[in-house]
Structures are given as structure tokens and as C-alpha cells.
């Protein structure tokens, strides 16, 4: 199984090359056929495992990844995984072919194939994963790849915004999902789903049951576009149609449904499970169907219809009787076939006439006969007309929901299906019948790669309807995996005349009537209802999303403006203030017990040195000329060197003397070119700063005294003293530490010095051109204004860059 994933990933890696090679050989879009071989191969490999899976023999792979973290790449193929895996690879192969035709001649075709294959690998991994964390990683990978796919037309702002919205909603859901999965893993004491299955009972009675269920459901609902997170799916239609056909009908949006199904045997069967999932699903189902009729864009109609079906699946899984589980899988399979096909039909129409507005379309059946045939097959399945698989799915659905006593679920189901039948009218009838319109006059059929895939899906839907025995096996295995026990499934096309059939007929009649009303332009009569739904649904969550996005951005801007205000002293003040505050918070209580009187043992010359340092510091602070300040700084440095001499550190003293001299010389050289001190601040500011400085200084004094009382009795330098001669053969221990024991540190120090030297050299050698002409002092007004007038010159940018680095 790992090989399958690897094969798809390799195909993704070589997709751009394949595109180039095939393109240069004059093959045009044939690369799609070449690449489709890989998912088709995986599809066949999955089919070969069908018999063993159907006989309840799961296939699994276990690779220990990070044992210390309980991370394992474990994959398992059971009925549910097989069902999803076949959809992912089968439809994926068709989509690759279709995408080749759809984006024929586009430079980005290779990129599209690559992203589609990457997504396919992520999705396949998601449905095969047997470890919660592996599952989560693939889950997130689908979010990221779908972000890239939705934003495929990256030059269009609305496309980018839609991609970001999808990422924020599904990625945010993923963030919520992760703690849910971790809670589940903790409660079940394992992250392996197959192990968790054996401890379902304790997990359902665990104290964390409700929180984990809520967290996981938020993740699943965002991914599967359930109310109130449904708004991202219609916007995601900004993607090119092959992507919508793949992600937003058959795969990605089903991931949430898959998760609910996968965890059903562990978490399902409780009242919380039933009410939360079934009710959200029912709301989404009705909402999607109503909003589908409001839309005029072909893809939007399909997107809302998809939301409706996703709601159906969620509802059926929430109800969770054996019959509804089977029905959910049947609807899932039927939907994958017909919705994938219909999206491709919509794409073919768009590709041919560059128009997706239903009102502008008409009369295409003669111009695009193959597409029309595909639309008919898919439309019949969507409307649930005999003898398609869609009919069987709907029968099973009605039948199963009808047995849930006293519920409005059946009514909601019929209501949503009436809407879907009417939507079929808009997608499959309106564009093809009637007179040709202005937009469709020059319509023409696309190539085989364009109409072939939807026809294949349509025929498959029909074939499954006529011969439902084989698929029954798979549905039995799949629903067995969801239910956690064997479920007998006997699908048949004809059940005889019963209540369910009558309900189906009623649905069809209602849908056709609704379509007829809407087509007759009687829309205004229904408008108030639509506005009601629009207000409740489209605007509510969507507006909240935009408000949230705006507010977060505003907050970030405001916070940045406040904290990063450009005043260096403000940053310093923050740092010093926080340090002082945290020191006092840490010391607070312990100070009194630790501070004990220390022997005040000083000698005269030491006092003299200390006083000299303090006096020089005061002079440096109060100096009105730079020369005095630099001189005072030098005095401080020499006196510190003196202290080093007195307390047994001659090496330090020598270094300090040399460096101090260098520093003073350097300062004098540079400062002679700089202006005299100006007094820039008011006395109030100076008083405030003095207070801050004194408090900080006093804190350091106290901290230092405190540090000296808590000193351990065994300094680590004993080791250096003892081993200096025996191991490093040197008698000056300080030198030995620098060049031997801690030689790497010294190397680092030398590196810093070298980098600083390079910085100094490059700053000095990059002279502004004016300067080179000897046009006088740098501070001269005219030159300054000239330099200010020419931003972005070489020197400016370098200086700015260096300043940034310094800031870091």
C-alpha cells in the first residue's frame, strides 16, 4: 500500500516533465493519458484485493515511524477504505485525462497534474490510514493541496481569496480536529484505529467523550462543508472545473463524511452522536437543495447540490442504523459518479461557449451530443430515475429513513430531493433544450478526453444500477466497517410497488413541477422564501468569516503599530522594564532569607578605583561634548582593567587595555565627523529615563548580591584547574580554556569578529558617489537633500539592510 502512495507521488514529481516531453513530441494533452496510467494501476491493484476485503480479510501495513512519540505509519484496507480508494483513484484517473483536454495548451498544465496527483496521494493516504495521527497528517495534506488547487488561477484576486477561505475554514477545522483525535487516543490508550475498535465501550463512557466528539465533529463538518461552515464550498468553484469535479464532488469534501464513518464504530451509537450529526446533516441537506435553486451559475448549482448531498450523508451516518449506513454508502457511490460527471459536463460547456450562466444557455444538444448523453445519464442518476444507480440509492435512503420512527428526517429528505430534481432541470435540461442562445451559437463538441470521462462515469452509474450485485458486496463490507459488525446488503433495482416507490414518484413529480414553476419565471412568488434562507445561511456564517478576518487583520495592524512604533527607546524601555519586573517577581519572597551581612573587607586603592568608575560614568552621562564623553568612557574602561589586575586576571586586564585604547581612538576618529551633542529631550523625559535607569541599576546590584549568596561550593572550573596541565599541557588556565577546552567557542568568537570586520569594511567602502567627487562635508545640507531625493540607491539599500540585521 505504501508503494501505491509512492507511485502516485513519483507520478506527481514527474508530471511537469511528462507535460514538457509529450508537448515537445507534439502530443499536446496526451500527457494526461500517460499520467492516468498510475492511478489506474492503483485502481486495478485495489480491485484485485476486492475478494479478500469482501470476505472480511483486511489488508494492513505497519511501519514504525517515531516509536517514542507513538507515531506509526500504519495503513489498513477494509471495505470502507476500499470503497473510497476506488473512487479516489478511479475518478482521479479520469480527471487527469479530462484536465489535459480542459487546459490544453496552457503552460500550467504540468503544474495542475502535479497538484492533482499530490492531492490524490494525500486523499488515498487519508482513507487508508489506520493511525489517528497518520490520518491527521494526510487530512492536513489534503487541505494544503486543495488550497493550491482552488487558488490555481493565482492571478485572479477572487480565486486567491476563495482559496484562502477554504484553507482557513478547513485548516481551522483541522486544528480543532487534532485535539479531538488526541483526546480519543488518550481515552482509548492507543492511536491505532484497529486497536481503538476493541475498546469502544470504555471510550463512549469516558469523561472526555463529549469534548472529543465535539472537536472531531467540527473538523469533519468544516471539511465536508456542513452548516454553518458550508459557505466555503461554493466559493471554491473559482477553481478550474477539473479540480471542482475531483475535489468538490468525489473526494476532498467527502473526507469529513469518511471520518465520521470511520469513527462511527468507536464513537457512534449514543444520543449525542445521533442528534448532533443527524440534525446538522438534515439542516445542511435542505439548505443546500434550496440554495442550489437560487444559483444561476452552473457550477454554483452543482456546488450547492453537493452541499445538500453531503448533508444527506452526514444525516444518514448520524442516524446510524444498519439500513441508513448502507444507504449512506449507496448515496455516496451514486453521488461520486453523477456529480463528477456533471461537473465535467459543466466544464465542457464552459470550455466550449465560455459561459456558465444557466439563463444564457440553451439548445446545446445538437452541438454537443456526447456531452448531452453524459449529462442525461448523470442527470437521471441525480434525479433518481430508473434504472440508474441513483434510483437504487434513493430507494435505499427513503426506505432506511422511513424506518426511523416519528422523525421529520423523511420529510426533509423528500424536500431536499425535490429541490435536487429541479436542480437537475437547470443543469441537464435547460442548457441542452430549447433554442440556441447568443452564447451557444458557436458551440462545438470537445475532444474524446473532454466528453469521454463523464460518459464513462455516466455509463458506470447506469451499469451499477442494472447489475447491483457486485457493488452490494462492497457496500456490505463498507457498512460492516462502519457498523463494526457484518451487515447484509441486498440491493435490487426493482422492489415492486411499495410506499418507497410512491415517494420516489412523488419526489419526481414535485421536482418537475418546481422546475416548471421556476422556468416560467414565477420565481418572484418564491423569492421571499429564498431571501429568508439567504439571510439565515449565506450571510450569517459568511459574514462572520469576513468580519473575523477583518478584525484579526485590524488587531494585528493596531498591535504592530503600538508595539513596533519605531522608537528605539520604547523597545529598550520594554525590555528593561520586563526584565526588572520579572527579576523582582522571581526574587520577591526569597530575598529576605538569603541576604545576609557580608564581610565588608576593602582596601583603599580598591575604593578609589570603584569611585573613579562611578565618577567617570556620571561625567559621561552629563557630558555636553562628545570628547568629554569618550574620555570618560575610556576612564571607565581603564579602571575596570585595573580591577582585573587587582583580582588575579592579568590576561583580561591586558586585553581590556588594548581594546579600550582602540575603542577610544575609533570613537575620536568617527565622532569628529559627527555633530556636537544636541539636547533633544525635555527635562521631564530625562527625569523619567533617569528613574528607569536607577531602578534597573539597583535591580542589577540586588541581583548580583543575591547571586553571590547562592553560589554552589563546587565551581565547575575546578575541573579545568585540575586538568589543565595533564590534558592540555598548558599552565595559564584561562588561555587553555580559550584555545583548548572551549576552542570551538573561540572559533565562533573569531567568526563574529570577522563578520563584524566585513560589515565595517563594506559600510566604509560603499561610498556615496557624491562623496568620491570630494564635494565636501557629508553633513552638508545640499548633499543630504540630494541623497534624500534619490531613495533606493545602492548605498541606501545596503544601509537599510544592515540596520535591519542590527535590529534583529
Amino acid at each position: 500500500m505504501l508503494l501505491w502512495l509512492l507511485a502516485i507521488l513519483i507520478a506527481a514529481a514527474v508530471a511537469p516533465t511528462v507535460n514538457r516531453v509529450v508537448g515537445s513530441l507534439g502530443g499536446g494533452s496526451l500527457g494526461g493519458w500517460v499520467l492516468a496510467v498510475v492511478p489506474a494501476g492503483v485502481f486495478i491493484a485495489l480491485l484485485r484485493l476486492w475478494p479478500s476485503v469482501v470476505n472480511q480479510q483486511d489488508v494492513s501495513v505497519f511501519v514504525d515511524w517515531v516509536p517514542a512519540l507513538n507515531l506509526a505509519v500504519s495503513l489498513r484496507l477494509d471495505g470502507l477504505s476500499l470503497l473510497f480508494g476506488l473512487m479516489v483513484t478511479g475518478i482521479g484517473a479520469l480527471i487527469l485525462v479530462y484536465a489535459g483536454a480542459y487546459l490544453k495548451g496552457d503552460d500550467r498544465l504540468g503544474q495542475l497534474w502535479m497538484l492533482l496527483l499530490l492531492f490524490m496521494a494525500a486523499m488515498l493516504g487519508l482513507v487508508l490510514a489506520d493511525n489517528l495521527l497518520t490520518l491527521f497528517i494526510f487530512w492536513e495534506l489534503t487541505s494544503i493541496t486543495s488550497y493550491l488547487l482552488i487558488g490555481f488561477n493565482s492571478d485572479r484576486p477572487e480565486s486567491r481569496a476563495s482559496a484562502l477561505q477554504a484553507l482557513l475554514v478547513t485548516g481551522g477545522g483541522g486544528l480543532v480536529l487534532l485535539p479531538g483525535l488526541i483526546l480519543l487516543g488518550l481515552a482509548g490508550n492507543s492511536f491505532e484505529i484497529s486497536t481503538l475498535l476493541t475498546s469502544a465501550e470504555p471510550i463512549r463512557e469516558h469523561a472526555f467523550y463529549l469534548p472529543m466528539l465535539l472537536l472531531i465533529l467540527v473538523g469533519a463538518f468544516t471539511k465536508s462543508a456542513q452548516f454553518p461552515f458550508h459557505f466555503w464550498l461554493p466559493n471554491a468553484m473559482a477553481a478550474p472545473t477539473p479540480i471542482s469535479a475531483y475535489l468538490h464532488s468525489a473526494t476532498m469534501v467527502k473526507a469529513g463524511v469518511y471520518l465520521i464513518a470511520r469513527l462511527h464504530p468507536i464513537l457512534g451509537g449514543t444520543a449525542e452522536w445521533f442528534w448532533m450529526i443527524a440534525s446538522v446533516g438534515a439542516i445542511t441537506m435542505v439548505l443546500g437543495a434550496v440554495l442550489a435553486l437560487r444559483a444561476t451559475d452552473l457550477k454554483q448549482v452543482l456546488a450547492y447540490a453537493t452541499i445538500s448531498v453531503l448533508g444527506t450523508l452526514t444525516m444518514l451516518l448520524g442516524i446510524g442504523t444498519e439500513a441508513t449506513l448502507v444507504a449512506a454508502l449507496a448515496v455516496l457511490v451514486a453521488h461520486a459518479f453523477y456529480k463528477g460527471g456533471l461537473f465535467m459536463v459543466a466544464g465542457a460547456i464552459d470550455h466550449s461557449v465560455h459561459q456558465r450562466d444557466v439563463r444564457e444557455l440553451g439548445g446545446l444538444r445538437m452541438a454537443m451530443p456526447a456531452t448531452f448523453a453524459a449529462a442525461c445519464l448523470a442527470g437521471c442518476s441525480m434525479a433518481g430515475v430508473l434504472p440508474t444507480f441513483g434510483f437504487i440509492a434513493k430507494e435505499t435512503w427513503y426506505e432506511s429513513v422511513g424506518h426511523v420512527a416519528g422523525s421529520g428526517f423523511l420529510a426533509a429528505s423528500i424536500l431536499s430531493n425535490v429541490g435536487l430534481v429541479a436542480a437537475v432541470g437547470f443543469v441537464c435540461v435547460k442548457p441542452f433544450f430549447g433554442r440556441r442562445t447568443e452564447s451557444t451559437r458557436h458551440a462545438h463538441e470537445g475532444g474524446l478526453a473532454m466528453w469521454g470521462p463523464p460518459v464513462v462515469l455516466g455509463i458506470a452509474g447506469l451499469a451499477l444500477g442494472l447489475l447491483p450485485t457486485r457493488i452490494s458486496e462492497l457496500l456490505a463490507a463498507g457498512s460492516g466497517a462502519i457498523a463494526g459488525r457484518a451487515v447484509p446488503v441486498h440491493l435490487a433495482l426493482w422492489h415492486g410497488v411499495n410506499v418507497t416507490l410512491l415517494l420516489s414518484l412523488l419526489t419526481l413529480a414535485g421536482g418537475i413541477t418546481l422546475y416548471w414553476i421556476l422556468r416560467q419565471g414565477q420565481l418572484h412568488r418564491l423569492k421571499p422564501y429564498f431571501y429568508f434562507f439567504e439571510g439565515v445561511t449565506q450571510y450569517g456564517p459568511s459574514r462572520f468569516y469576513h468580519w473575523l478576518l477583518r478584525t484579526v487583520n485590524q488587531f494585528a495592524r493596531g498591535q504592530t503599530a503600538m508595539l513596533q512604533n519605531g522608537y528605539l527607546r520604547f523597545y529598550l524601555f520594554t525590555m528593561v522594564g520586563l526584565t526588572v519586573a520579572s527579576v523582582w517577581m522571581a526574587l520577591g519572597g526569597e530575598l529576605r532569607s538569603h541576604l545576609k551581612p557580608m564581610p565588608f573587607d576593602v582596601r583603599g586603592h580598591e575604593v578609589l578605583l570603584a569611585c573613579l568608575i562611578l565618577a567617570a560614568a556620571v561625567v559621561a552621562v552629563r557630558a555636553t561634548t562628545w570628547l568629554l564623553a569618550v574620555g570618560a568612557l575610556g576612564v571607565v574602561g581603564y579602571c575596570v582593567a585595573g580591577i582585573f589586575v587587582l583580582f588575579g586576571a592579568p590576561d583580561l586586564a591586558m586585553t581590556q587595555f588594548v581594546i579600550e585604547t582602540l575603542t577610544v581612538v575609533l570613537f575620536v576618529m568617527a565622532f569628529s565627523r559627527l555633530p556636537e551633542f544636541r539636547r533633544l529631550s525635555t527635562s521631564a523625559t530625562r527625569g523619567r529615563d533617569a528613574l528607569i535607569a536607577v531602578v534597573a541599576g539597583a535591580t542589577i546590584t540586588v541581583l548580583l548580591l543575591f547571586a553571590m549568596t547562592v553560589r554552589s561550593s563546587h565551581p565547575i572550573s575546578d575541573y579545568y584547574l585540575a586538568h589543565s596541565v595533564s590534558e592540555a599541557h598548558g599552565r595559564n588556565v584561562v588561555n587553555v580554556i580559550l584555545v583548548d577546552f572551549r576552542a570551538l567557542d573561540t572559533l565562533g568568537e573569531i567568526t563574529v569578529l570577522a563578520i563584524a570586520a566585513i560589515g565595517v569594511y563594506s559600510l566604509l567602502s560603499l561610498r556615496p558617489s557624491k562623496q568620491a567627487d570630494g564635494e565636501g562635508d557629508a553633513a552638508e545640507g545640499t548633499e543630504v537633500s540630494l541623497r534624500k531625493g534619490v531613495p533606493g540607491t545602492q548605498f541606501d539599500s545596503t544601509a537599510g539592510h544592515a540596520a535591519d540585521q542590527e535590529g534583529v
Partner: protein
Amino acid sequence: MDILLAITVGGLYAAGIYMMLRRNVVKLLIGLGLLSHAANLLLFTAGGLVRGRVPVVPDEGAWPLVIVADPLPQALILTAIVISFAVLAFALVLIYRTYQTLGTEDLDELKATDT
């Protein structure tokens, strides 16, 4: 002596911080210099003071027989002195060039990266 040096270190810190809070970029440099001295002295004092006993192993022994000054803080400070010199030199040149280019030493006029 510990107390005296602790007070000295505190005084140097106060002076350094005060100077770094100035708007004048030249004063900021002086403050940086004071602060690095303060930090060195802080390390030195915190490492423990031993009068006049250099951490050198006498010729006739394998290790010092009497208590000597702690060599470890000294090694640290030696590194710190050199690094702070590098930082000071770099900052000095940076400020010098900034002044040449922009003609101001007032930090409040250097708030944005674009001139």
C-alpha cells in the same frame, strides 16, 4: 569588596541604560560602551573575587595548590570584551554612515526604513 563592586556595577548599568534611552544616536553608542563594561564587571564579580592569585599552574605542580581566581569567568569575559568591541565598532560605523546619508543623529527621525 563584593558589595562595593555590586554597587559599581549597578551604577554603570544605570548610566549605560540612561544613555541608551537618549534620542541622540551618539549618546546611544556611549551608553552601549558603558553597558558592555558593566556586563563584564558583573560577570567578574559574580564569578567570585580572589585577590591577586592568578589562575596559573605553578611550574613544579600539576595543579594549583592554593585557591586561585576562577579561570572560567575570566575566559568568558575575555570573549565578551572582544565581541563587544566588534559590536561597538560595527555600530559606530553604521551610525557614522547613517548620519552621512541622512544627515540626522536624532533617532526619532530614523523611525522608518524608507527615507
